[in-house]
């Protein structure tokens, strides 16, 4: 559909214009926000209070999460309605580390057991909590827990060629099953209440302004690196196969590629990115609980990507920040009861009137005006080829 004449041959650039703009903006924000927080007095108009820093940090982790969705939805056509599960698993891995750091400062003062275990009258730490007192181990788990789940789930699903909405529905069932499981007290993850009351991270007070700034900057760096990684992947031969799978999976198989392996790699990478996002999210909001597994959360991620522009990477990050800013703005004011109307309306409006999202529409417009510019990342061709 979006086939606008001839484009000049260019060596595949790692970053397009929009990518460079994105990284520059990200870098500026990562520097400016801490400066405005630290160097400007609180009474100044441009001062950024610490709670805003954490809020922005949260947006950045959401942007990374959206990026992970865009990698598989935008480029492989896998609409995962369970991406929130990977995010939550990463978050739980980080949360378990933070719980172990509380030590004797908990309400019950048990040096080993987190409060909720003492409360449940548990005598010993469950085996799967071992090692989480060491940060490197927890960091590894942030990648491995979502990665392994994605590997196992994806291996089954892609090998048996579950595609399109069927895949979406079983990913949703997956996160729903995890939601039920994590609600249980005897799973050993704090049940309903999840993990909270964190004290410090790597020896730094988690409430301190400095720690929050560092977490914010780390989130920005993770988002930047995540973007470059995704961009690298989708520009590679590997990434071209991914897009080919999205458009004509059968053809890819008859061309000799094992489509399921490509999907699996992309799915696992995406899950790990989501896990990292979750791990950065938890110390900034101070809690992780089972509601992160709820299917509704996972679907909401999709709308971020749809708003920003599926298959553009930059758009996914932009959409996440925009929608979440809107959410914060509306849910904190008198308009709070209407937020769900707006979110619902956004779902409908974007699919009907802005199917390519903000960035995708901008690319189209730019293509029309300057047909000889660089080729956009991976335009979505005819609607719904993935089904």
């Amino acid at each position, binding site marked *: *559909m979006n086939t606008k004449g001839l484009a000049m041959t260019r060596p595949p650039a790692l970053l397009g214009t929009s990518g460079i703009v994105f990284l520059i903006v990200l870098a500026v924000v990562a520097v400016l926000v801490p400066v405005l927080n630290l160097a400007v007095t609180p009474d100044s108009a441009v001062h950024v209070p610490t709670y805003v820093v954490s809020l922005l940090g949260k947006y950045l982790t959401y942007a990374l999460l959206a990026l992970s969705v865009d990698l598989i939805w935008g480029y492989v056509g896998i609409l995962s309605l369970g991406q929130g599960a990977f995010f939550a698993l990463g978050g739980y891995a980080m949360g378990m580390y933070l719980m172990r750091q509380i030590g004797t400062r908990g309400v019950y003062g048990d040096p080993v057991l987190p409060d909720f275990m003492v409360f449940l009258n548990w005598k010993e730490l469950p085996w799967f909590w071992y090692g989480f007192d060491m940060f490197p181990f927890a960091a590894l788990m942030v990648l491995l827990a979502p990665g392994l789940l994605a590997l196992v789930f994806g291996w089954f699903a892609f090998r048996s060629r579950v595609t399109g909405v069927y895949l979406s529905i079983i990913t949703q069932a997956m996160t729903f099953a995890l939601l039920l499981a994590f609600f249980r007290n005897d799973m050993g993850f704090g049940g309903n209440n999840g993990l909270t009351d964190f004290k410090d991270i790597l020896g730094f007070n988690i409430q301190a302004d400095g720690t929050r700034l560092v977490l914010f900057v780390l989130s920005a760096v993770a988002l930047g690196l995540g973007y470059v990684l995704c961009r690298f992947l989708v520009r590679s031969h590997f990434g071209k196969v991914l897009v080919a799978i999205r458009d004509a999976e059968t053809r890819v198989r008859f061309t000799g590629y094992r489509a399921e392996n490509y999907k699996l790699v992309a799915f696992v990478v995406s899950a790990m990115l989501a896990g990292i996002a979750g791990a950065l999210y938890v110390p900034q909001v101070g809690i992780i609980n089972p509601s992160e597994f709820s299917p509704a959360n996972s679907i909401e991620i999709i709308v971020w990507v749809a708003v920003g522009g599926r298959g553009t990477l930059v758009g996914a990050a932009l959409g996440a920040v925009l929608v979440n800013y809107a959410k914060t703005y509306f849910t904190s004011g008198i308009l709070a009861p209407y937020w769900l109307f707006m979110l619902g309306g956004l779902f409908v409006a974007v699919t009907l009137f802005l199917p390519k999202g903000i960035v995708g529409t901008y690319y189209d417009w730019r293509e029309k005006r300057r047909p000889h510019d660089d080729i956009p990342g991976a335009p979505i061709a005819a609607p719904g080829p993935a089904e």
Partner: protein
Amino acid sequence: MTDTATLEPLAEAAPAAKKELTEALLYLDAVTVTFDGFRALNALSFTVDPGEMRAVIGPNGAGKTTMMDVITGKTRPDRGDVFFNGGTTDLTKLDETQIATLGIGRKFQKPTVFESHTVLDNLRLALKGQRRALPNIFRRESAAERERIDEIFETIRLTEHRDRLGGALSHGQKQWLEIGMLLAQDPKLLLVDEPVAGMTDAETAQTAELLRAINANGHSVVVVEHDMTFVRDLGVRVMCLHEGSVLAEGTLDQVSANERVIEVYLGR
């Protein structure tokens, strides 16, 4: 990647059949496929020799597409043998990807190219080479590969369209691109399903020329086509399918003179 199932020597096979098997590139014997009681293929048997080009004709529902599905691993036969490479490989035990890697390329009835990739990228993706996922993340194009792609562009006459998106090509251009992609795969056997459907007469003639050129380069080709002018242009052995088995075989003139073929095409 190519964990091909190797065939035990067919001890019970008669010497003549054995010779036929070991000399054939593709060997189908008594292949039957049933869908919900409907027999799409009914004890279909034929062989394709190395370097041969074969045209397959037949009315709608004769089983032409199902035959291709069986050869390329998309459909499993209920009964019968499908062997490749002189009887060394049992195709019924392999899936599409393995069969494609073995050297069987397929062009679909409806032209299927990667619409949001450029024509150049379409060929790059099809080009024979690394197929595994992880190594392809860091793959770079070699000079030899670039040359090969340029050659294919010459053959399929799409050089000036190399940077257009696949989806932007005309119908005929898509057909050629798909044939070009098959060529890039460098298969031993090309299965081509209705390559000239919807083409102008000039395009049809060019396509016949293209397929002859491909065949002359040593590729075996099986073409399914309704267009008799095109089949005549190809000038090859013709096989007529009807109700899932071979009705007649020979030159086009022989086949079109066959009474049963006339009956099938003209009705009784």
